[in-house]
């Protein structure tokens, strides 16, 4: 890792309250040296972006278990572009069909984690997103 801990905001957007995954991944990230800003449930894309700016995060991690992923990913990406936050990584997890995983990545999502992804894979993939920034 770098000298400065990488900061990630983790939360859910919309009404889906399945928070098992974000709770577990938050803990795994903290155990691996990341600083996690836990945003909890019922956020809007605007609020997540606003918090991301305020907290000066390096990445945003959100999860969707009810099929809302394309609807909200689109909004997040638009906002990130508008605010010129291209260096903030966008990570999405949850119940996401394979074709949508490709779709999300094509739209600019940096990493997608579906159910059963092992801890090691998640941490390695996220570490790799910052590989070029490691001194």
């Amino acid at each position, binding site marked *: 890792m770098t000298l400065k801990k990488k900061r990630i905001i983790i939360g859910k*957007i*919309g*009404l*889906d*309250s*399945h*928070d*098992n995954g974000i*709770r*577990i991944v938050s*803990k*795994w990230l903290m155990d691996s040296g990341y600083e996690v800003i836990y945003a*909890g*449930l*019922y956020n*809007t894309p605007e609020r997540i972006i606003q918090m991301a700016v305020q907290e000066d995060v390096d990445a945003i991690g959100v999860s969707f278990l*009810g*099929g*809302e992923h394309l*609807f*909200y990913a689109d909004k997040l990406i638009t906002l990130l572009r508008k605010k010129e936050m291209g260096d903030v990584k966008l990570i999405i997890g949850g*119940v*996401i*069909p*394979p*074709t949508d995983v490709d779709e999300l990545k094509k739209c600019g999502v940096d990493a997608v984690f*579906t*159910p*059963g992804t*092992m*801890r*090691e894979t998640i941490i390695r993939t996220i570490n790799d997103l910052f590989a070029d920034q490691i001194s």
Partner: protein
Amino acid sequence: MNKKPIGSTYLEGERVPHFRSLSDFEYREIYDQSDWHGELPAPGVYPFTRGIHKDMYRGRLWTRRQQSGFGTPEESNERIKFLLKVGQTGVNMDVDIATKSGLDPDYPLAQGDVGLQGTSLCTYEDMKALYKDIPLDQVSSTLIIQPPYSAIIMAHYLLLARESGIPWERLVGTIMNCALTQYVGPTFQANTSFFPIDQAIKIGLDVMEYMLSCSPRWNIININGYNIRETGVNAIQEAAFSLSLAADYIKGLIKRGLDVDSFAQRMAFFSAAHIDLFEEVAKLRAMRRIWARMLKEKFGARNEKSLWFRTAIQTSALPLTAQQPLNNIVRAAIQTLAAVLAGTQSIHTTGYDEAYSLPTEESQKLSIRTQQIIGYETRVVNAVDPLGGSYLVESLTDEIEEKVWELMKVIEDRGGFVQCFKDGWVEEQINEARYKFAQATDTGEQPVVGVNIFRDEEEDIKINIFRHSFDMQTKRIQYIQSYRKNRNQESVKKALDTLYKLIRRQTEKNMVEPIMEAVSAKATLQEICDAMRQAADFVIPS
């Protein structure tokens, strides 16, 4: 990846990593008289260890009750009719998360979730569309909705029965109606963000009391132990949390002056069948015993039916995997078998596509066929409680019963389950359990085929995946907006004002009828909820 790899070389032979149960009981190598030598009362005899009925599935099979609901009420109506056609024997109506949060489809925070995890249902006309061509006196329906929204959906259902000329006494079914477990188990933020929790419990009790007075065959509450379990807690916690919560509701109804025998037989449970077969069977047998003893000894019930622990089962989705999804068919079949061997009243077999989307028609049909194969072909239904008397199952039943009582005592000493929930104690237990569960999969301590053992590295998923119709959300938003425009605004306002004033005055009056008035006046789900929220000075996330 596997820190404790499973020994699988040809020379050593293949061994599992340990012999503990999913809830951390150590299975012994062999069970004999030294483990269990108790008495075993017959099925249908107190404390009902062997089942609540003397003849069990010889008398009638369990109800096949697959949850269904997505998109518009019209789409869900088609799916319900499909399920009934392929052999489903009860309706299990699930609403979307917006409806479960008391929000109309055009509320900004709700728009992305409309119709996704259930059907969008916010007006009386929606309920009519959902049950089109399904006579309410010919099916038993489970309505998956919690208070205070349960009062509104129940009002829709009762009004529909009235309009169809069906007396309420003839309705058969269940309203889930539990204020603490319906979202995703008893997690704090989800259950406290859209309505004040005490008011929600109060309105839940109103619904129970109201249904007891007018619809004697209706089940007034289903304690959702399934959702409790799906957070990652173990079998002991699932049982103890569910039964402790039930005790709180019983106390609430007794406090209203109701006799325990007037309502206990209308209370039921919704439990999980996880993947540890014997432990799940033992859990359900233990829960039957605890319920019977609690009702008789603690609450003084005299009617035998009050002592019957009745439960619906859903096969747990936690052991199901996105990897090698066809494996889930096998898992769900074994879990369904566990539910049958435990003597449950109804079953939802979870679809193999659970880790990808809502179930397709194909997947739901397979779930029903799974149950039919177990019911009609395997002969496991021929004898009542076929595992009864097994040293292992009986000793595990005793052990689980003891542990559940212990945990229930802890909860009672802390003021009951509702209090523990409000204090954040439940949240702590859940968080601890879900980390532990995730850790167990991560380390390989809990082997999961296709995930931490026997993986296919370059897997290409080939199953069909359910897709929502593309304009469904827009349609629902347009529908509700035009609904609000085309009605008599004066009568809506009047009904909502009445509701507001009643809540404002903190009256003890039962709210079901005022809510029914508002529904009849064409107030929408969210309008009714907002009137009550404003009266309680409660602000929801926007």
